[in-house]
């Protein structure tokens, strides 16, 4: 699914989509590989307001983050995730990771971990949970598993 289709599906507004597409162009310029995937971290405040936070891009070996999407700030950083994930913790609420496509409006999924010396945090709610679960499976799990295999 393209970034545009994905963002529309998660309910991003036009100003956010516009900024995200610009960030994608920048990501393509600064990443030495093809950008294969994307994910937008978001959560709900207590007052019901949905907050979009960081926009993530993934290639085979690199992970890019554009922080504070809902601000004037324009920024993007890039790190190598290939065999570089030290630890991660997954938390979920009203969501069954063994049935990742079965989400509800109240489903929440969070992953936080360490990428080298940098900490990362990705949050998903509702229909965005399966997307995050897929990202975890494709880009996070293989890169800690490989470290374990290396140390054996």
């Amino acid at each position, binding site marked *: 699914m393209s970034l545009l289709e994905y963002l529309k599906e998660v309910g991003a507004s036009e*100003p956010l989509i516009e*900024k995200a597409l610009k960030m994608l162009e920048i990501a393509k310029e600064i990443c030495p590989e093809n950008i294969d995937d994307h994910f937008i971290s978001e959560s709900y405040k207590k007052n*019901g*307001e949905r907050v979009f936070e960081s926009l993530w891009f993934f290639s085979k070996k690199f992970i890019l983050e554009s922080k504070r999407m809902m*601000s*004037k700030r324009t920024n993007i950083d890039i790190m190598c995730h290939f065999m570089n994930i030290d630890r991660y913790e997954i938390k979920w609420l009203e969501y069954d990771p063994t049935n990742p496509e079965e989400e509800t409006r109240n489903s929440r999924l969070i992953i936080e971990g360490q990428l080298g010396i940098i900490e990362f945090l990705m949050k998903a709610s509702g229909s965005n949970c399966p997307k995050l679960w897929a990202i975890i499976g494709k880009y996070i799990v293989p890169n800690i598993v490989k470290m374990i295999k290396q140390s054996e």
Partner: protein
Amino acid sequence: MLGCKLNLPTITEYETFLENEILKPTGMKKLERYYDNTVVSMKKDFGESDFFGELKNKMQTYNDEYTMDRTYSLLTTQDPIEILTKPFDSMITKCFRKDILNNTRWKEEGFSFESDYVWINPLNCFVELTDILRTRISAKYLDGPVFLLDKLIQLAESNGLEHNHEYKADEEGYYAIHFYTEFPFEITDLEFESINIKSKVEFQLNTGIQNLIIDLTHKYYEEKRMKALSPDDKWQWDYSCDEFIPNYLGHIIHYIEGMIMEVRERPE
């Protein structure tokens, strides 16, 4: 206000006049039912209109545009915009204020209920009054209402609707921007014949904190508006009167909100 020296009719005398002269033979009770049914129909029509639908759909976009430009959230709540209708009694009270208390014609010698004048009443109020339908959108910060005003103007113009607005800053500490859009409605008259009218829908744009003050001070505001005050009545000099503290709260809050903006806009 014209002042109590003019010996203006009371609200009871006004209601009696309406019932016996203007609303005859229908009577106030039947008209109350007619009014209530009409505003329910108007509320439904406005709620289902393209303009209102577009506004509801765009609130998230407006919020995000504001947030991405100014970092902070635009709105105080994610609750849907609610359309409120003016209750019948409140409408009669407003007609009384316009026809009697604030009507400068009463200064003319000989002006009375028999004079040639178009009295606002439950039959023509839908056109004459600007807040039969109203809604309120509250922003978090003081620059929010102006931002929302700009969006409402754009939306009204893209929908081909007439509009106007007022910056309210009353002595009584009421601060808000009132935006009006003139909307076409098809209602029925007392003979159930369809008539096309244009009625103004009022949007009150203010801040969340000012909303709190409005809820606290509303009853004092309403009481005062129903009195024919003498020019010598100055609540500002009567620190023991009921209005003194609530009214100044409104001014103080507005000032503090300005100071909050000043801090918010300081460079990082």
